[in-house]
């Protein structure tokens, strides 16, 4: 069997690239997913979509993504629960306020309708928050959230309708490379598939996928824990993120509140066990910010992997020395929201060799010969 393109990984990145490749005219496209659609990080993630980033590269991609999200349900024929309820970033120190001020100027320049708002306005508009220690907040009304499982499935279904083969429960265990060219992949059930190009969309396993092709990439997996509450009457519109307490939370369409805490000391491993430690810390942090949560019930906890890159920004495009290998990896906890833009641009790169928006700053070349990097700071 031979394909023009083989994608490893059926998460949001793999599925959206598959869809965009078929949309841009590629005939035979296949996705190999060792489990099922959205079984990886995508189905475990928070679902937040924001354009408020500290780096212009992330901002540009996020703005483009939001434009695409706005038309996505119609384009894919799916109700993904996309909701533009806005996104509120909380600042608790003067330093944070200063940083927000600078970010807002840069973000407005990138076309993000964001503004800094004072504590009184926050208290009036978002009465569920305890504003006693708050200094200011940044609010963007076109940010929002989505149901990650549904949007992942929507892309996979649409790719399939366009003729892509989606091989579920099929792990790629070997990649056969001859000098600068990848020839084929071999699956766990010992089938061989030849390919024109190979795309690494392996999420938390991106470094392992690259290694099968003899390629070394600087991405590392890191556990992030998350939980969901019982359904509540609707009380909040925006997703809220609080870098000070390392938490984020949002209310789903269904009424439950999804929330996560990013432990700054979490080691780099593939562990995705939920911990009691997380429940304790999360409870402490969320009840500080939303006191009424004390009486609310937790229904389920779980964890997933961030695929961290050295500067917490994605690594996109080709690598030196291999002519037909592409990657969209290292999303560092914000791959869901960037997927529509990244997938469209990756497909352009693969089909035509060029992109309608410059993403060369995000190629792996930026790490060559460097050991220190400017970190994207707006990450939980």
């Amino acid at each position, binding site marked *: 069997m031979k394909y023009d393109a083989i994608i490893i990984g059926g998460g949001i990145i793999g599925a959206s690239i598959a869809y965009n490749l078929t949309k841009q005219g590629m005939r035979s496209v296949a996705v190999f997913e060792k489990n*099922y*659609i*959205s*079984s990886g990080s995508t*189905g475990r993630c928070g679902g937040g979509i924001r354009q408020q980033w500290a780096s212009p590269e992330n901002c540009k991609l996020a703005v483009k993504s939001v434009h695409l999200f706005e038309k996505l349900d119609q384009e894919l024929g799916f109700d993904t629960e996309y909701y533009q309820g806005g996104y509120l970033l909380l600042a608790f120190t003067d330093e944070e306020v200063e940083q927000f001020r600078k970010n807002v100027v840069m973000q407005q320049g990138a076309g993000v309708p964001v503004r800094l708002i004072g504590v009184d306005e926050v208290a009036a508009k978002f009465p569920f928050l305890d504003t006693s220690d708050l200094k200011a907040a940044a609010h963007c009304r076109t940010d929002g959230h989505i149901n990650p*499982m*549904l949007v992942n*499935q929507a892309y996979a*279904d649409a790719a399939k309708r366009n003729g892509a083969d989606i091989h*579920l*429960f099929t792990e790629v265990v070997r990649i056969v490379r001859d000098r600068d060219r990848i020839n084929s992949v071999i699956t766990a059930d010992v089938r061989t598939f030849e390919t024109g190009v190979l795309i690494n969309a392996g999420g938390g396993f991106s470094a392992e996928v690259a290694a099968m092709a003899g390629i070394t990439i600087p991405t590392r997996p890191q556990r992030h824990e998350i939980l969901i509450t*019982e359904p509540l009457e609707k009380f909040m519109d925006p997703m809220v993120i609080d870098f000070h307490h390392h938490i984020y939370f949002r209310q789903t369409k*269904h009424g439950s509140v999804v929330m996560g805490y990013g432990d700054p000391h979490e080691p780099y491993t593939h562990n995705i066990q*939920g911990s009691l430690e997380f*429940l*304790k810390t*999360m*409870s*402490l942090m*969320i*009840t500080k910010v939303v006191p009424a*949560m*004390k*009486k*609310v*019930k*937790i*229904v*389920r*906890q*779980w964890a997933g992997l961030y695929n961290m890159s050295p500067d917490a920004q994605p690594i996109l495009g080709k690598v030196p020395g291999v002519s037909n290998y592409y990657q969209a990896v290292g999303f560092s906890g914000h791959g869901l929201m960037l997927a529509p833009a990244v997938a469209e641009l990756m497909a352009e790169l693969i089909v035509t060799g060029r992109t309608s928006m410059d993403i060369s700053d995000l190629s792996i070349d930026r790490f060559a010969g460097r050991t220190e990097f400017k970190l994207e700071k707006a990450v939980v």
Partner: protein
Amino acid sequence: MSSEQDRDIIICRCEDITEREVRECIRRHGLTTVDEVRKILRAGMGLCQGKTCSALVRRILAEETGKKAEDIGLPSARQPAKPVEFGIFLQEGDR
């Protein structure tokens, strides 16, 4: 369980999901596992965490895919076992 007139019976009581909806979801997206149905349809995501409905969903999956029910895995147990209030995890002083 599968005669036409019975298809409006509720499979997932917590989330109010009918047999018809489960079957349609399985067919539309080509699903083969209880976990997929849980994630897409929410059947099994309710307060009881699928204790009541997972086995029923598995039986429908078996009928739809022609596999034996025993060959279709059930989702692993989720923490916490029962819904608990955030307050439980706080120290005395923070409650």
